[in-house]
């Protein structure tokens, strides 16, 4: 059972590092703000994106069939996977059929979700993640901590050490230019030796049967224009109806993610390369369950931009790993409980309900409202700790009874005024660990109000 609070506390304990992480992500948020403000029509754009996704989801089955028809007409092969296990089997099957053992993979959160890498490695294949951030975490044998900036939690000194150990760069080197150059050489070898390229899909177009992959590094494209086999893996919610809808999403995606107007490469694939093979794997893995929920359906709008993570004051100060889920942050705290509420029951509470995420989301997912709704779900499923449920029952009991409430308040204030400090501030008082409690007044507001001469005192006492 994950517990965000415990992991977050560990993260915060390294004060300078937590501060550095917070500043790094705030900087990305600030760049997003500048990019958004450069378009006066930004809020309309968000509204259009949200409506396009809602429309697409309302006719998803038809659009999936249209996409499949058109993709097959172009010469691609389309596969359908109910869940992660089936997805992995399908990908394995394609690779084995082509006798592939060396694979390069550009960033795909879907393949992370399905844990594709360890599965393929168990079957004797080499999978190299080619996005630099992904490659760094792969070399460190850890999961990415952010869906767009996988290595945002790692400092350049640590990258220098890692590359020194594994790539033979100079000891103590930290210059990003130098380190990127080393990674370039290392990954070029992998691109050259690869027998297949696996990619994700940013947007698949029903109208044309094609799909788009967005990168800055060019790693997707190198990965699929050298080897003859391209496998593209996508969640079924990545579909959009028309090619012109790409205009909306490509204007929003990079600006929301990193504050750039567009990624360096927005590659549009329509059918395989001449002489090559293209496979598209459509994956459900719980998305149809989310679709059926009125409360959570809008989370399928997600275009995996990461803006919610960058803006989340909790994510910035606890790091992606504290969520222990493939997708962390606000959107992850909605998607992961949908897969396994018991495992991820602390995530909807890893949130101060500030609402910043909802305001940055390019596709207008009501993130903080869905997080609150998830809390209700977790309570309904009996997953709240007893201390919380009993605590709330007790508090509600008191608050429903005016006299009991007044008496409890008086007693609490009296205790706070009279008890010695050591009885109030101790390990049972989490509030008091680093904060003072408010000083307790002698009378409450209502005490004072009742004592005033009749200038509006309400006689309705029950």
């Amino acid at each position, binding site marked *: 059972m994950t517990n965000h609070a415990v992991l977050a506390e560990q993260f915060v304990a390294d004060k300078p590092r937590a501060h550095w992480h917070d500043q790094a992500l705030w900087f990305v948020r600030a760049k997003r703000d500048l990019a958004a403000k450069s378009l006066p029509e930004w809020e309309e754009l968000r509204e259009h994106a949200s409506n396009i996704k809602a429309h697409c989801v309302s006719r998803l089955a038809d659009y999936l069939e249209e996409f499949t028809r058109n993709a097959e007409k172009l010469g691609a092969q389309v596969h359908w996977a109910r869940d992660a296990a089936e997805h992995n089997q399908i990908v394995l099957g394609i690779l084995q059929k082509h006798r592939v053992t060396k694979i390069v993979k550009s960033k795909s959160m879907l393949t992370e979700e399905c844990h594709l890498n360890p599965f393929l490695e168990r079957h004797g294949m080499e999978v190299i993640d080619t996005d630099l951030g992904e490659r760094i975490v792969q070399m460190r044998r850890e999961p990415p901590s952010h869906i767009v900036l996988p290595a945002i939690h790692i400092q350049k000194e640590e990258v220098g050490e890692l590359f020194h150990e594994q790539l033979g760069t100079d000891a103590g080197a930290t210059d990003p230019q130098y380190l990127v150059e080393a990674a370039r050489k290392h990954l070029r070898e992998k691109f050259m030796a690869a027998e297949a390229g696996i990619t994700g899909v940013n947007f698949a177009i029903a109208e044309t049967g094609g799909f788009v992959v967005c990168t800055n590094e060019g790693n997707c494209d190198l990965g699929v224009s050298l080897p003859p086999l391209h496998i593209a893996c996508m969640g079924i919610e990545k579909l959009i109806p028309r090619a012109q809808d790409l205009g909306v999403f490509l204007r929003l995606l990079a600006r929301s993610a990193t504050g750039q107007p567009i990624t360096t490469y927005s590659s549009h694939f329509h059918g395989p390369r001449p002489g090559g093979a293209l496979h598209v794997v459509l994956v459900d893995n719980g998305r149809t369950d989310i679709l059926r929920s009125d409360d959570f359906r809008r989370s399928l709008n997600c275009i995996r931009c990461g803006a919610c993570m960058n803006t989340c004051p909790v994510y910035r100060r606890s790091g992606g790993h504290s969520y222990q889920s493939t997708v962390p942050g606000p959107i992850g705290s909605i998607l992961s409980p949908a897969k396994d509420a018991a495992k991820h029951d602390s995530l909807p509470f890893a949130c101060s309900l500030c609402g910043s995420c909802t305001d940055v989301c390019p596709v207008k997912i009501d993130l903080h409202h869905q997080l609150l709704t998830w809390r209700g779900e977790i309570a309904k499923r009996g997953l709240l700790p007893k201390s919380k449920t009993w605590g*709330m029952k007790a508090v509600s009991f008191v*608050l429903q009874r005016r006299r009991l409430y007044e008496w409890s308040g008086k007693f609490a204030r009296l205790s706070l005024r009279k008890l010695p400090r050591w009885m109030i501030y101790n390990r049972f008082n989490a509030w008091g660990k680093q904060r003072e409690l408010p000083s307790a*007044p002698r009378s409450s507001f209502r005490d004072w*109000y009742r004592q005033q001469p009749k200038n*509006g005192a309400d006689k309705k006492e029950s």
Partner: protein
Amino acid sequence: MKVGLFVPCYVDQMYPEVGWATLQVLRRCGVDVDYPVAQTCCGQPMANTGCSDQTAPLAKQFVAIFRSYDYIVSPSGSCISMVRNHYGEFFGDSADYQHVRERSYEFCEFLHDVLKINELPGRFPHRVGIHQSCHGLRELRLGSSSELVQPAFSKVQKLLSLLEGIEFTSLQRPDECCGFGGTFAVAEEAVSVMMGDNRVADHEQAGTEVLTGVDMSCLMHLEGLLRRKRSPMRVLHVAQILACDDGKTIFQ
């Protein structure tokens, strides 16, 4: 016009001076204000923990108490947000609830939108830092949020500027959450405190002498941090500043 004053439970018990200041300002503006003593709590702590069943009776109680008023005003953005945005599931299409929902206002919102006050006698010659509480900002839209592309506005600052001599400090992150978040303050204590410390540091670098906002919950958390480090920075609710009287002596 008859206004029912709703004073949040913890303000009633721990910050009565804020309830008092709210009442003073409303009366000075000529409003006929009642405080129905039957009230206790809007139910937000239960709702935010996911305990709908425990929230329902309090929601029903609130509507029953306040349905006969023309307006319901509260010095709390989060409580009003609760009433307006999260009571729906308990009421269906109840006319009483619709009325309460439409007529519930946060204190500054009421002064700005309903009374439309454009002058307020009083001096407050201090450097004031406004903490923009999240519920007030992003649920009630008391001001423009930094995330949205929209013209800048702040109902709270507009009201405070009516006072003579007041100055506002400029923050690095004008609307970042303070980290209170209800039970979050205790359940995720480490992150909550770091968030609060960062807000305090922002105000310190900005030169804030008086930290203010529309939600006493945020201010309680920030003040808790300030008092622990023995900071001279004062913390006052907007009502106390607008009243030009912090009301503390009345409740000592």
